[in-house]
């Protein structure tokens, strides 16, 4: 007989990576999150009418997408998928090697975009593409060996296919800066934006939500058939969008893609609402408030996309679409989930030598999260107003608030890491029935 909480970490068949692996991805994401907001502070004049092109806004965008979103997705999926799909961790060296390749690659890409320095950008892109390709292989091996959770696995495969499109289009776009001729720029850009945000990251988020949201709410698994319909609609929307970008009936297919994507989102939203309404745990705090806001922003991004297709008479529609999609949907969702899974994973790693693991609540510092919550949402609101009013000053104020929020989030993360290394008493417990 043995104390299970202390034993499961070190077991030969453990499905947990060493804490240093997921936490290095999460910690780096926290740092790049701060750098992204600082990069936005560097050139607020370009923010309200941003429509692509080298400079600090593009660097900020990629610090978020590559440095925060993909970085966290790699750490979370490499850790959560083996746990959820009942298989041992396949490799401990590969995730670490991916981090060593990916992290400086992202820095080079962002710096190359910001300065700008096309050769630095291209060199960084080579490292990023190589690291993401290695991650794709690890993800594929995890998905092949998975048992159970067919809906999550199906989302994983669709996200993986999207990642391949993202890597091909990114190589073409980055190569163009150093004279390499790949796909037509307009087509590559459309594929890149759609398959990176709605495809790779979007489908990974929707798939992992079918594990995470019921787990947080303590509800039953979402209806599998409806989740499959949602996924089918999402994949159909991506294919319609890709066809439109290739020049086949662009306006009609883009409108059809947005309509189909809206159907996928509505169904997913409904499944998540059922999970939250039927769960044992009703009070989910700030983290779920961010997730709910993110779901709304996802819907709003589709409305903005429709505005772009219908050539809405507003110069900032592209920037607004990017803000809603990346800042409003993906970043807000991820920060909401991250503040919940970081203490949870930390508590799973605090057992060695102790008789009781630290509780997630005893590892969480609420004050920095409260500051981050206010700053993050206010920053997004300021950026939206800056785009609507074409005001660089309001954009700068938003970027400063975002920087303050990122600092607060970094403080929360640092406190979790510090507390997980200190054996201590679990001071507070969730309300439980009395003996």
């Amino acid at each position, binding site marked *: 007989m*043995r104390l299970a909480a202390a034993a499961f970490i070190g077991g030969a068949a453990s499905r947990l990576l060493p804490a240093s692996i997921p936490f290095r991805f999460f910690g780096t994401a926290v740092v790049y999150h701060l750098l992204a907001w600082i990069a936005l502070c560097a050139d607020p004049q370009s923010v309200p009418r941003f429509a692509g092109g080298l400079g600090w806004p593009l660097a900020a965008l990629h610090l978020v997408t590559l440095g925060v979103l993909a970085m966290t997705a790699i750490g979370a999926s490499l850790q959560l998928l083996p*746990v959820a799909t009942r298989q041992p961790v396949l490799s401990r060296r590969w995730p670490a090697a991916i981090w060593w390749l990916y992290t400086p690659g992202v820095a080079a890409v962002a710096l190359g975009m910001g300065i700008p320095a096309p050769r630095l950008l291209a060199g960084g892109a080579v490292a990023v593409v190589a690291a993401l390709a290695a991650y794709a292989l690890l993800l594929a091996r995890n998905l092949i060996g998975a048992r159970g959770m067919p809906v999550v696995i199906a989302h994983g495969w669709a996200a993986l296919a999207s990642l391949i499109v993202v890597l091909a289009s990114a190589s073409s776009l980055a190569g163009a800066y150093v004279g390499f001729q790949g796909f037509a720029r307009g087509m590559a850009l459309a594929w890149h934006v759609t398959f990176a945000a709605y495809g790779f990251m979007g489908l990974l988020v929707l798939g992992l939500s079918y594990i995470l949201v019921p787990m947080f709410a303590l*509800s*039953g698994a979402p209806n599998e058939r409806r989740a499959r319909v949602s996924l089918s609609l999402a994949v159909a929307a991506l294919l319609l969008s890709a066809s439109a970008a290739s020049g086949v009936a662009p306006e009609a297919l883009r409108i059809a893609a947005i309509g189909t994507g809206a159907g996928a989102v509505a169904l997913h939203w409904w499944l998540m609402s059922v999970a939250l309404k039927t769960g044992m745990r009703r009070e989910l705090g700030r983290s779920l408030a961010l997730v709910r806001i993110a779901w709304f922003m996802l819907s709003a991004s589709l409305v903005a996309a429709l505005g772009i297709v219908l050539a809405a008479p507003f110069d900032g529609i592209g920037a607004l679409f990017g803000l809603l999609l990346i800042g409003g949907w993906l970043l807000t969702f991820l920060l909401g989930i991250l503040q919940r899974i970081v203490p949870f994973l930390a*508590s799973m790693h605090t057992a060695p030598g102790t008789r009781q693991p630290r509780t997630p609540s005893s590892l969480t510092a609420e004050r920095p999260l409260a500051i981050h919550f206010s700053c993050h949402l206010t920053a997004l609101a300021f950026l939206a107003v800056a785009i609507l009013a074409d005001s660089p000053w309001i954009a700068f104020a938003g970027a400063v608030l975002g920087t303050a929020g990122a600092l607060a989030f970094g403080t929360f993360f640092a406190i979790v890491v510090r507390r997980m290394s200190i054996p201590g008493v679990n001071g507070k417990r969730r309300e439980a*029935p009395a003996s």
Partner: protein
Amino acid sequence: MNACAADGPLAPARRWVEADGVHIDVRGLQPPGPLVAILELVESIRDATPVIVHHERDPQLLYPELAEIGWRAVRLDAEAGEVRLRLERVP
């Protein structure tokens, strides 16, 4: 011992009572069904009665949740292919 006699709507796991505690068999449930079923049972117990869990794998996500409500898990010997745990309130 004072546990809910009937399964909750979210947790169609088999439960029965033996001398060593309330047993729950969550094998075959789709995640997070086992987690929900176990916590639903644990939170319904008002005294020091232990819970014996019959699982098909080590429920790693359960341990932080148990710690949060002042319970812990002890691994018991079991047949091949089964993970058996005794859950008990931390004194």
